[in-house]
């Protein structure tokens, strides 16, 4: 029941000095808006970076042969260590040899010129297996992707950019068209819908031509498998798989060193990075809030000086020192709450605009709001304590003696 009195008095006092109150509120408002906006932006950035990756890359792993061998030193010596077609064939058995691997797609990039109707296409040629479609989550626009039964047939599938180029040069359908890759002629059997990308796969899918490894092996014997993509079973332990794969390779290709990267590891490190980013932004906002807090303290100290008489009179008619402290703290809490909440509302708009501007998905994280609110409140209380203490220390006689 006495709380009602404190709050009423505090509100009343704040209302009596509107300008001062508004200034204090603005200080907190700017700080809280900064904290919430920056944390939200950090969260949105994190979400943006992780979302597509999570759907596509969560159960992916990639395996790269370390290039610490000197290929020119002597062909015989290093022959077995070059990740060539044989290596690719061994990799394909991984799905059956190592538990929890579902699909395997060795990927080799051929740097051969590609021509269509006599015109050169700027298109890297990617030699891989049919599994690549699942791994990279490719959607088919027309026709089909490579198939297991294609074997070494000279079939190719093109990315959306290449498909467009082929269309520009002729009719609507591109199925059955002939591309010249190096010295060989390949028949287009399908095209891929525009691909949004995947942090895990570095190939430029939209601008590439896909052929099967077996076909590539036929006309370009010096294949170099730069990456092998692996699809892991959901909820499998990537670290275990990494060990198993390395053991398998060590037995088959002694001396071969590989680096395995798994999606989970990447997500962990990305999340970590982004969290650091978010915290940094939050910290910057926190500094703004600190300034706001000092503003509250300043405004309240002025208020204590201006209200010496009132405080003295309150003490003289029987208010306890604690009453005075609580009253001033209540004022600080009210200022901080109003500032904090308005700041949050304003940051809602700012975040919306920023999201709109960056074409990010708009997200207002609850944790940002909670952090913003409680940090504002804490700031208010923290910086209100000293003025409240100052106020309660006043000696009523000093005030009463003065006219």
């Amino acid at each position, binding site marked *: 029941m006495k709380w009602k009195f404190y709050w009423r008095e505090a509100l009343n006092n704040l209302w009596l000095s509107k300008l001062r109150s508004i200034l204090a509120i603005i200080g907190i408002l700017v700080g809280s808006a900064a904290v919430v906006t920056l944390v939200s932006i950090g969260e949105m950035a994190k979400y943006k970076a992780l979302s597509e990756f999570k759907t596509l890359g969560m159960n992916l792993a990639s395996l790269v042969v370390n290039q610490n061998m000197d290929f020119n030193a002597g062909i015989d010596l290093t022959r077995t260590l070059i990740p060539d077609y044989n290596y690719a064939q061994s990799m394909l058995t991984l799905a059956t040899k190592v538990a929890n691997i579902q699909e395997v797609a060795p990927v080799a990039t051929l740097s051969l010129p590609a021509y269509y109707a006599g015109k050169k296409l700027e298109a890297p040629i990617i030699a891989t297996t049919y599994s690549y479609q699942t791994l990279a989550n490719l959607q088919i626009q027309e026709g089909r992707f490579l198939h297991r039964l294609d074997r070494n047939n000279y079939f190719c599938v093109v990315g959306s950019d290449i498909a467009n180029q082929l269309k520009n040069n002729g009719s609507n359908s591109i199925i059955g068209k002939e591309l010249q890759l190096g010295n060989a002629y390949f028949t287009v059997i399908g095209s891929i819908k525009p691909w949004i990308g995947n942090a895990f796969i570095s190939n430029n899918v939209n601008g590439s031509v896909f052929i099967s490894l077996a076909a590539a092996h036929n006309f370009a014997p010096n294949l170099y498998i730069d990456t092998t993509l692996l699809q892991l079973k959901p909820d499998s332990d990537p670290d275990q798989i990494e060990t198993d794969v390395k053991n398998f390779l060590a037995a088959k290709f002694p001396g071969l060193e590989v680096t395995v990267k798994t999606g989970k590891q990447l997500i962990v490190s990305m999340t970590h990075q982004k969290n650091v980013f978010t915290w940094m932004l939050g910290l910057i906002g926190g500094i703004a809030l600190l300034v706001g807090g000092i503003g509250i303290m300043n405004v309240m100290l002025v208020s204590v000086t201006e209200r010496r*008489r*009132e405080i*003295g009179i309150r003490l*003289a*008619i029987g*208010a306890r020192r604690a009453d005075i402290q609580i009253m001033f703290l209540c004022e600080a809490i009210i200022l901080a709450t109003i500032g904090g909440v308005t700041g949050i509302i304003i940051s809602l708009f700012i975040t919306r605009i920023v999201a709109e501007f960056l074409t990010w998905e708009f997200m207002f994280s609850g944790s940002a709001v909670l952090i913003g609110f409680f940090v504002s409140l804490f700031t208010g209380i923290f910086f209100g304590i000293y003025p409240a203490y100052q106020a309660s220390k006043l000696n009523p006689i000093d005030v*009463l003696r003065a006219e």
Partner: protein
Amino acid sequence: MTNTVLSCDKVCKIFDDGASKVHVLNNIQLSVNAGETLAIVGASGSGKSTLLHLIGGLDRPTSGQIEIMGKPLATLNDRELSRLRNAHLGFVYQFHHLLPEFTVLENVCLPLLIRGEPIETVQKAATEILEQVGLGKRLSHKIGEISGGERQRTAIARALVTRPQCLLADEPTGNLDQHTAHHVFDLLLKLNRELGTSLIIVTHDLQLASRLSRTFELQDGILV
């Protein structure tokens, strides 16, 4: 229960600001019973206000003991002093000391609100007492909007709203004309009769002082 509302025993007050010592009060001996009325007169600077502040527990004596309602003030902590001041004593200060931003009614409500009483009963009590001092029609005026005499009466109402056992008034008629001053005194004496409140009133006006049951003079720190 003792009939003594207030007693001072060998109370001394020395202001010591390092360089010089000011002996303001010297062995004050005083006892006030319930319902008694007391005038304290004395030259300016003789220590009248100081004595009232000591009695009100706003300041502590250099030596000696003050008891209010049988409780020695020296044994009370800040919090208990505040409660005692709020519960048993009413103060009318030399410069009335009302809160100018608040209305007449709000000023009078304050001592009861500080106790934590619900606002409805507080407003009822405050309105009642303000009617008694003749300010029933000025409740919602700001302090700045009323006359000096009305302020003085508001201050009296604020002091009495808690129904104190003892009212301490420091020149309550200080800046009032003769006529109004007598009117305020009428009021105080009426409340003394009706509520049994002891009055300790500091005044320069010997004529007003003579209307009270006892008169003391402060001279060189001694009550005579």
